């Protein structure tokens, strides 16, 4: 009985901590302005990053060499994105008013992924410039 209670409470706190942790990663990325070059390479519109571009961004991130350390961020954001998509599937018919909130969350994930890609592109450009100088 006590173990079941501990399990139930732990799952609830886990969800809350993980959502807050993912949001802290996303909020950190939102302070970054995407470069014009990154927008061009990713094919991003003037309006910003759309939810549908998340998978494409993930594929592009996988193609770019990792400068080290941001793989964890990408995985955590991707996990949060999947979790929100699951909530979207379950709740879209039950609580239609939650749709704008879910879209905003998914948009935040997509923007954070675009920021990671932008940083990787910048890092690779810098490497190429260094190689050209040598």
């Amino acid at each position, binding site marked *: 009985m*006590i173990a079941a209670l501990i*399990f139930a409470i732990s799952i609830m706190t*886990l969800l809350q901590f993980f959502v807050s942790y993912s949001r802290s990663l996303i909020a*950190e990325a939102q302070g970054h302005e995407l470069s014009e070059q990154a927008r061009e390479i990713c094919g991003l519109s003037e309006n910003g990053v759309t939810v549908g571009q998340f998978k494409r961004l993930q594929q592009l991130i996988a193609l770019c060499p990792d400068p080290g*350390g941001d793989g964890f961020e990408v995985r955590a954001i991707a996990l949060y994105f999947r979790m929100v998509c699951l909530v979207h599937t379950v709740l879209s018919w039950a609580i239609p008013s939650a749709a704008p909130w879910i879209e905003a*969350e998914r948009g935040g994930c997509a923007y954070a992924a675009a920021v990671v890609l932008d940083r990787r592109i910048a890092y690779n450009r810098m490497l190429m410039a260094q190689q050209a100088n040598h």
Partner: protein
Amino acid sequence: MLGPVDYALLFAGFAAHVCAFVCLLKKRIITQHFTLILYLGFSIAVGIGRCSILKTAGFTSPAYLYFYYYSDALTTICLYFVLMTLYAHVFSEMGVSKHVRGGAMLLLAGTAGISYYMVAASSDRLVTHFVVELGQNLYFVGVLLTYLLWGAMVKLRENRTRLVQIVLSMGVYLSLFAGAYALGNLYPELPVWRYLYPLINLWLPVSWTYTFLKVPDDARIATARVLAPNR
């Protein structure tokens, strides 16, 4: 008998702790986050101890079982020290660090006492059962303490990004372990536990390495942005 997946998970956990330890030492934050380094150092020592017992006594031996659960309880107590330091960081301006420390030590002793009483009152009175129960309760009290700390941080509008991320990652880790231990108590025969515990063990060193590598010390974040939906 251990398979390649078990060995890979064991090695990954050990490597992740060593990487985090080196990263924290390189960042020269020993005075600021001494307990984090202490916890990582202790985890590395426990990892070495587990490997040597695994080699000499084997995975299914009682020696390994005892060492695993008792070292896990000690590692969790080390995490309590980390939590106490985080409390001290958050309440540094209010000058209540001593009270926080005293309260946490009382809670720790209380948890051990209650766990012992619960197992001593049961019919089998197995010491191994006590240590599993203790592990579950220690992690759960850790979850509650982290939750309280997070609540205080939100109330005090704590905006240091590193601190926010360290506390939240600890919350994720402790909740994962408390849930897994509780479910393990209910269904101890499931084969998934031997893979799940080492997998969860990766979370804390990897998230700390990320935080200390990627988030500058002076980075600030509004807690409202973490709590409220994105706009």
